[in-house]
Each structure stands twice: as structure tokens, then as C-alpha cells.
């Protein structure tokens, strides 16, 4: 390597060269082996050269019945400490033209994706997923890679049995995510003593869901509201019940929801749709109002639809059950399921505490500015300290609620961004929203269940 003085062209050229990427593959892979797993995979974004290091796949062919063995073998050879020594992806071709793609990631994650290949109209199927490895009769594979988090995507009637045969081998499974399984209409998950978190996303034909778990702490569900049966009780700290697509079964009764209600009673983080509260929760607890509280709930995401003139009664009634609430996110989704509200919220409630801990409120998707202001004003009265109230319509432009004294000479509203709330005679101030400049994530936190 020649040395060039700093004032020469050669020096400048050398110092803008990407010397690192010129090192041989083997050395780059060894450098990556020294990175913690969070940083290691991020190198995939550096350039096409670096992506190439990560994208070697092992390609295998066989029958669907043999897929479980292929996956086991693939896992056994993977070296967590040297993640590029063996391919992190397995492409397994089976049947006529079906493929499963199994990918390993740091922190003991395995992602199994059946979505490539032809998707004919999905045949409906029921799925019993037994996680309890003690019931496994054939000998477990000597896997040295311990899967703790498993993603199962696009499992169908043709592949669910193969998946069922491999899952019990993951004796250390803690987090299970089932995504976009078309045709899945009934799911039964049998107990695993280690399972802590369960996520079911967009399985759009799912109508019956039977859970037999004891230690579940986190449950995220998005899709039609199924017939939900938690056979054993568990206490969730984190529950996302995104049933905004409405019920999948007619004829459900609110008492059917009671076992589920008990699982979310102690939740600290919750996502709930207004219709779920009105139809499934309120009827059950309206008898017990003074005794039933979501007394640990700190962060709530409330999904509402918009009808003419926003009616905040349901939300306010729910908030009265949440004495510890710190953050509230309200989203208006016009596509969200709505049922004609027959609930009456009796004003004679009840012993409720002030929302003394409410610090942040974020309103999203309101198209009617008067409704937005009037709802925001409600929040200013709920506790001793006024919370920070942010509104946005498009998710990008933020507005913050401020108090404005009434002594100002009457001014025209300068832009659409400011609307002045109707004021009453005995008030010396009024509320309005003013635009806020800043990174949305710095100004206002995000609810954990909201996607990126």
C-alpha cells in the first residue's frame, strides 16, 4: 500500500474509497460475527454487496411430510455465534410447485413462510396446534438452535399438519405469531408451559378460537371477532383486540365474552374497539360498575368509527373505569365496524376516580374539527392536571391543544388549522389546536400496538 501525502489527489481518492467492502467475503462475515445480533442484521442495508452476504439460501426438495425433518436439520447446523457461516434461509420445495421459506434471525427467531407459489382459493380447515412437547411420541430432533419466537405465515390446509409436527419440538417456544393463514376457520392451541405471547393477525376466515394456555401474558389479535374461548384463565398484561372488522359469528352474546374480559382485566396496555366495549363489555359490567375497574391500565388505544357527530359517551364511560391511565390514543377509522348503539350509560355511576395520571392524549383521523375540539376539552376536565393533547388527521401534521385567553380581540381564523371552541360567558379562556413542528415520535409517544 503506497503512502500518499494528504495534499495529493491520490490521497483524496484513497480516502473516499470504500476499503471495507473490498475485504474478502470471509473477513466481512467474521466481522459480522463480532457484532451483537441487532447490529449484525442491519448490515444488510449497507449495500448490495452486504445484502449478498446475508442472502444465501439452502435449497432442498422433498415431500411436505419430510419438511419437518428438513427444518430440523437446517436448525441444527445454524451457528448463532457465527450467523453467516451457514445460510440463514432454507428454501424447501415440495408438492407440484409449493415452497416454504424458513429464515433464522437473531434472538432465537424462526420465520416460516408458505406464501410463495400458487394460492388457489383456500380450502377451509381446522387446526389443532399442540405445543406441549411431552405429547410428542417420536424422538425430538437434537436441535441446538432453540427457537423462542416462531412466525408462521400463510399456513394452509395442505401444510398445517406438517407444521403441527414440527412445532412441539420447540421446547423453549415463548412467542408464537400466526399470520395471514387463509382458510383457517377454527384454531385450537394446546398448552405450552412456556408460551408467554400469542399473536394472530389477519386470518380472515377464522371464526373459532380455543386457547388452552396458562401463562399467557400478551395476546394480539387482528381480524374478525371470532368465537373466543380461553379455557383456562390467564392474566394478560398486554392485549390488542383489534376487532374493527366486526364479528365473524352472528348470535354472540356478551356473556360469551366474559372469560376473555377476565383475562384483560389486569392489562397495562390495551387496544379496544368501541363496538366491543358497547356490545360485549358494558352489558356485563354495568351491574358491577362500582367494583369493576381496569385498575392497571396505563396505555389505551381506542378504535372508533365516525358517524355523524361524534358521540363520546362510550369512551368517557370507559375512561371512568381506568384510574391509572397515562396515555390515550383515539383513532377514528371510518371502516371500523359499528353497531347501532343501544347502550345507555347511566349517569348515576358511580364511584370513579379522577384520571390523575393522564399525561398524553392523541387523536387521529377526526375529520370534523368541532368534534375534535369538543372531545379534547372533555379530557382537560378529567383530571387535576391537563394532559398534553395532540391531534392529527393524516398522521404527519401534528396539532397541539392550547389554551387561549379570551381577551384577545376577535380575530378571523387564520387558517384551517385553528378552530376556536365555542365559549361560554363565565370562562376566561378557550381552547384551540395549533400546529406543532417536530418529529412525531418525539412530540408524542406511539402506542405499542401501532405498526411502524
Amino acid at each position, binding site marked *: 500500500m503506497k503512502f500518499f501525502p494528504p495534499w495529493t489527489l491520490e490521497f483524496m481518492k484513497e480516502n473516499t474509497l*470504500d476499503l*471495507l*467492502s473490498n475485504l474478502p467475503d470471509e*473477513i466481512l462475515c467474521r466481522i459480522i460475527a463480532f457484532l451483537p445480533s441487532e*447490529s449484525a442484521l442491519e448490515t*444488510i442495508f*449497507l449495500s*448490495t454487496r452486504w*445484502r449478498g452476504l446475508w442472502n444465501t439460501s439452502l435449497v432442498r426438495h422433498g415431500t411436505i411430510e419430510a419438511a419437518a425433518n428438513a427444518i430440523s436439520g437446517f436448525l441444527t447446523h445454524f451457528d448463532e455465534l457465527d450467523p453467516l457461516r451457514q445460510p440463514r434461509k432454507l428454501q424447501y420445495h415440495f408438492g407440484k410447485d409449493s415452497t416454504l421459506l424458513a429464515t433464522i434471525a437473531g434472538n432465537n427467531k424462526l420465520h416460516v413462510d408458505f406464501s410463495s407459489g400458487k394460492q388457489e382459493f383456500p380450502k377451509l380447515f381446522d387446526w389443532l396446534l399442540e405445543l406441549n412437547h411431552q405429547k410428542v411420541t417420536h424422538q425430538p430432533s437434537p436441535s441446538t438452535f432453540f427457537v423462542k419466537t416462531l412466525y408462521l405465515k400463510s399456513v394452509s390446509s395442505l401444510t398445517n399438519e406438517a407444521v403441527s409436527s414440527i412445532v412441539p419440538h420447540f421446547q423453549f417456544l415463548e412467542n408464537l405469531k400466526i399470520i395471514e393463514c387463509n382458510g383457517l376457520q377454527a384454531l385450537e392451541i394446546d398448552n405450552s408451559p412456556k408460551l408467554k405471547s400469542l399473536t394472530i393477525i389477519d386470518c380472515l376466515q377464522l371464526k373459532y378460537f380455543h386457547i388452552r394456555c396458562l401463562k399467557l401474558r400478551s395476546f394480539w389479535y387482528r381480524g374478525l371477532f371470532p368465537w373466543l374461548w380461553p379455557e383456562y384463565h390467564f392474566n394478560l398484561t398486554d392485549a390488542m383486540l383489534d376487532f374493527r372488522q366486526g364479528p365473524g359469528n352472528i348470535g354472540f352474546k356478551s356473556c360469551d365474552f366474559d372469560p376473555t374480559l377476565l383475562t384483560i382485566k389486569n392489562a397495562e396496555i390495551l387496544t379496544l374497539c368501541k363496538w366491543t366495549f358497547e356490545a360485549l363489555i358494558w352489558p356485563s359490567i354495568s351491574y358491577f360498575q362500582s367494583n369493576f375497574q381496569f385498575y392497571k391500565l396505563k396505555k389505551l388505544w381506542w378504535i372508533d368509527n365516525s358517524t355523524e357527530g361524534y358521540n363520546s359517551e362510550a369512551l368517557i364511560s370507559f375512561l371512568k373505569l381506568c384510574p391509572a391511565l397515562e396515555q390515550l390514543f383515539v383513532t377514528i377509522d371510518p371502516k371500523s365496524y359499528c353497531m347501532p348503539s343501544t347502550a345507555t350509560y347511566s349517569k348515576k355511576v358511580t364511584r370513579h376516580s379522577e384520571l390523575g395520571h393522564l399525561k398524553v392524549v392523541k387523536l387521529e383521523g377526526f375529520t370534523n374539527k368541532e368534534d375534535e375540539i369538543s372531545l379534547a376539552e372533555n379530557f382537560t376536565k378529567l383530571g387535576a392536571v391537563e394532559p398534553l393533547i395532540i391531534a392529527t388527521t393524516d398522521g404527519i401534521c401534528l396539532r397541539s391543544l392550547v389554551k387561549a385567553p379570551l381577551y384577545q380581540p376577535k380575530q378571523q381564523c387564520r387558517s384551517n388549522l385553528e378552530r376556536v371552541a365555542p365559549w361560554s360567558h363565565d370562562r376566561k379562556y378557550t381552547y384551540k389546536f395549533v400546529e406543532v413542528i417536530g418529529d412525531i415520535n418525539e412530540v408524542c409517544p406511539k402506542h405499542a400496538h401501532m405498526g411502524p
Partner: protein
Amino acid sequence: MSSSKSNKIVKLESSDNKTFEVEEAVAVQSETLKNMVDDGCANDTIPLPNVNGKILEMVLGWCKKHVDETVTGDELNKYEADFLDLDQADLYGLLMAANFLNVKGLLDRVLQRVADMIKGKKPEEIRRIFNIKNDFTPEEEEEIRLENAWAFD
């Protein structure tokens, strides 16, 4: 016939024709050189066409330090830390040399040093530090992000 190892000298020639003479005990810190010595190929000057003089001097300095029994543990640690305070060109030269010569401990230290420069940084910052050109289209970047979102959860 055989002289004791500690007296034998090994001669090395770098790619830019500089010669270095070191005791065998120092040279065999390199597994590659050790194999040559054991195979009896080390009697003449050993040419090292892929290591330049500056780097070879550094490597031999490292080896000498690690053979020197008068050096304390603390001194050695400080030496190693200062040793790696190099600019990128030298660092990679050292990396290639340590890999080729297979010097115990040195290669790992240099790999770790480079990894430390990458660790915890966002891709944009890493690209800036190392002058890596982002040759992805925005669509490709988005595709990778979507494909791997689960792995970053």
C-alpha cells in the same frame, strides 16, 4: 545438530522488499510461519508478497511484545489498545496480514475493533464512516425492510 529454538533467526521479506529478521520464537506466533518452520521451509528468506513493510513491522512488533516475558498484563493491555488506534487503510492492511499470517489473538482484536466501529450505528452512519456507496434503489430498500421487519421486532 539442531540449535535450540531461541537462537534461530527467521528472515522475512515484505512486498516492498524490506527485510526483517526476528527470533524464531517471535515468528512462530504466526501459525503460517510456524508451519513453514516446522516443515523446514524457513531456512532462506521467506517472501511475503501480500504484506507490506509497514504492516509487517507492526505485526512483528505485536509478536515480540507477546513473547517478551518482562511485559506485565497491564502493559500488554495498554499496548494492545494503542496498537489498534490506526486509520482505516492501516487497519484493513493489518486485518489481511493477521488473517494470512494467522497470528493468534491479533486477528480477533482487529476484527473486534472494526466491529466496534460498526456496532450500534444506523446504516447511514456506517456508510458515512466507511465510505460505502448505497447502491439500492428506494424500492429495493423498502423490499428488504418489509422482508426483514419481523427480524428486527
